[in-house]
């Protein structure tokens, strides 16, 4: 058998411990509930996170992401349920005894210490020798490009630099588990991309497990081994980035991650093919559906804009074709989004690569076009 150039791409070596029944999770949340007074911030949550994972938490503001992190770090204890780390209940363990470091959403840099001393703080508590500490701090400064600011106090550097100090400080101790609460929000796009790859690199080298909160979906897609979408203290879906994107399990997830067209209709089931009747007089949408669906059930059909092709004529090799009129074109440089109004009233967006220069573009406003897509391009959702 030919040697595969990238071992991780061969099916036997894919990193997916969550599919392996023998794998031991590093972190286990077992029916964890956290209440503040009568407000429930985390609601009966059960999840396993495995060693070497890059686990991303996504969700709207206030859905309980930080609370989840704080329970892992030891600043909050669950109202109900238990949290295991490496098989041991860590609820009674105080924060300073946990092999966990956290990067705070608010950075929490020590204002009276220099950048250097901030980074060295945790190392000094480990009882390392002076040289070892110096080397490690220098390494962290180089990694986060803060060499020039080592002697400054936190109030003498910019917001993005502060964020990097916080990151460096939490990385310095090379903990077993690293919690990053929106670690890269204040960085510009270029630096953010670089830092993302740094993080993945660090993770590859050290085998640290990362749990990261982010509002940037692209970031979650880039770095994460698995993504968890949260809502009101519950996990709505936990899956690989591709799984979340291509096979969302609910309208909430489909809508939360990326752009999506949602079309509601009544299902007519024939084997594993479903016809969705969404409007009087319009041809039904044909979709292949793995999940069992009752005949006549009300469903939502979710399809990503880039799965829909815009053409002058219907494409014969696709199962679905609809005619519509271009209402708006959003030009984004490499791609354009076409907002097409169907005769039945729905507005559908379709994304096309701009393979030609603007002047020679095919379509313009008010043009009649055909939208085509395959029967596997979208998913049928029942909730």
């Amino acid at each position, binding site marked *: 058998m030919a040697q595969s150039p990238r071992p991780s791409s061969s099916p036997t070596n894919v990193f997916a411990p969550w599919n392996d029944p023998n794998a031991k999770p590093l972190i286990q949340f077992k029916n964890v509930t956290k209440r503040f007074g009568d407000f429930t911030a985390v609601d009966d949550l059960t999840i396993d996170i495995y060693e070497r994972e890059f686990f991303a938490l996504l969700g709207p503001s206030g859905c309980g992401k930080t609370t989840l992190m704080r329970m892992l*770090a*030891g*600043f909050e204890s669950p109202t109900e349920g238990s949290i295991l780390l490496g098989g041991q209940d860590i609820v009674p363990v*105080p*924060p*300073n005894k946990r092999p*966990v*470091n*956290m990067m*705070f959403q*608010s950075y*929490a*840099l*020590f*204002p*009276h210490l220099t950048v250097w001393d901030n980074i060295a*703080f*945790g190392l000094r*508590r*480990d009882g390392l020798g002076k040289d070892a500490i110096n080397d490690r701090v220098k390494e962290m400064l180089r990694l986060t490009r803060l060499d020039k600011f080592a002697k400054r*106090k936190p*109030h*003498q*550097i*910019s917001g993005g630099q502060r964020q990097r100090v916080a990151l460096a*400080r939490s990385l310095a*101790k090379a903990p077993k588990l690293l919690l990053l609460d929106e670690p890269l929000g204040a960085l510009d796009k270029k630096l953010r991309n670089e830092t993302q790859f740094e993080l993945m690199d660090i993770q590859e080298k050290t085998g640290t497990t990362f749990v990261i909160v982010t509002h940037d979906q692209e970031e979650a897609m880039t770095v994460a081994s698995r993504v968890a979408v949260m809502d009101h203290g519950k996990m709505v879906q936990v899956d690989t980035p591709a799984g979340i994107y291509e096979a969302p399990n609910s309208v909430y997830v489909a809508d939360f991650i990326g752009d999506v067209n949602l079309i509601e209709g009544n299902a007519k089931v024939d084997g594993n093919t479903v016809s969705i009747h969404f409007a009087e007089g319009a041809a039904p949408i044909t979709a292949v559906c793995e999940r069992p669906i009752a005949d006549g059930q009300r469903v939502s059909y979710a399809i990503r804009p880039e799965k829909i092709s815009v053409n002058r004529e219907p494409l014969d090799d696709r199962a679905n074709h609809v005619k519509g009129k271009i209402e708006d074109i959003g030009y984004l440089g490499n791609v354009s989004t076409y907002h097409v109004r169907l005769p039945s009233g729905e507005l559908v967006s379709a994304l096309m690569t701009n393979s030609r220069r603007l002047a020679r573009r095919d379509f313009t406003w008010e043009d009649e076009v055909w939208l085509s897509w395959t029967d596997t391009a979208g998913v049928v959702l029942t909730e």
Partner: protein
Amino acid sequence: MKKLSWFNLTTLTLGFAFLYIPMIVLIVYSFNGGRLVTVWAGFSTKWYGTLFHNEAFLDAAWVTIRVAVATATLATILGTLAGYVLVRGGRFWGRTLFSGMAYAPLVMPDVILGLSLLLLFKVMFGSMGMTTIILAHTTFAMCYVSVVVSSRLLSFDKSLEEAASDLGATPFDTFMSVTLPIIFPAVLSGWLLAFTLSLDDLVIASFVTGPGATTLPIKIYSAVRLGVSPEINALSTIMIGIVTVGVLTASLINKRKVVQRLKDEKTAN
């Protein structure tokens, strides 16, 4: 700066006059050359000279300073710890009662505080002396320190302490290496406040004093009963000076910190 209206100006002048004329009179007469306190006999600093040769006054001054330093130090340690527990301790059993009781001596009349301490010390030690004055002063000065420190702690970002413990610092280590350095200006002004409170006190000290432990206020009070002498004026002027410097430094420490921080924030953004 805005110009004050004549009404504001008058009120301000009257207010300050009311507060400071007595002290100014005292200070002026301390430089009086004559023996009679109420008759001006030319400028002179001779009473300051005789003051520094008056053994009794010097002894009292030395007692007072030792008492004030010991009081301030003890009260600062205890008051800081009390303030810390009150703000950070969470909702432990009896917290409300404890916090109410910690501040009670602030509003308790000095006479009652003095009397109760006198009874307690009589039962505990039998005899009175410098130690009892220090203990008594610590009792009431500590409340002031804990008020100053806890109001600073209320605006203290708790996530800094969390970050420290996250990085492996024990609670004590966290307090010493993060909390204390940051709230230090408040602790220092608490110390100065306690120092001046102890320096000023007459009522409580006179209850719990004993042989060989005469503080300056007690000494002055008893001397005045025999008639006001220019020497006393000189001594009082010096005390006013010390207290003024103490209070001004305490408030400047806090103010400079704030100004510095505002400046730093401006340059940071």
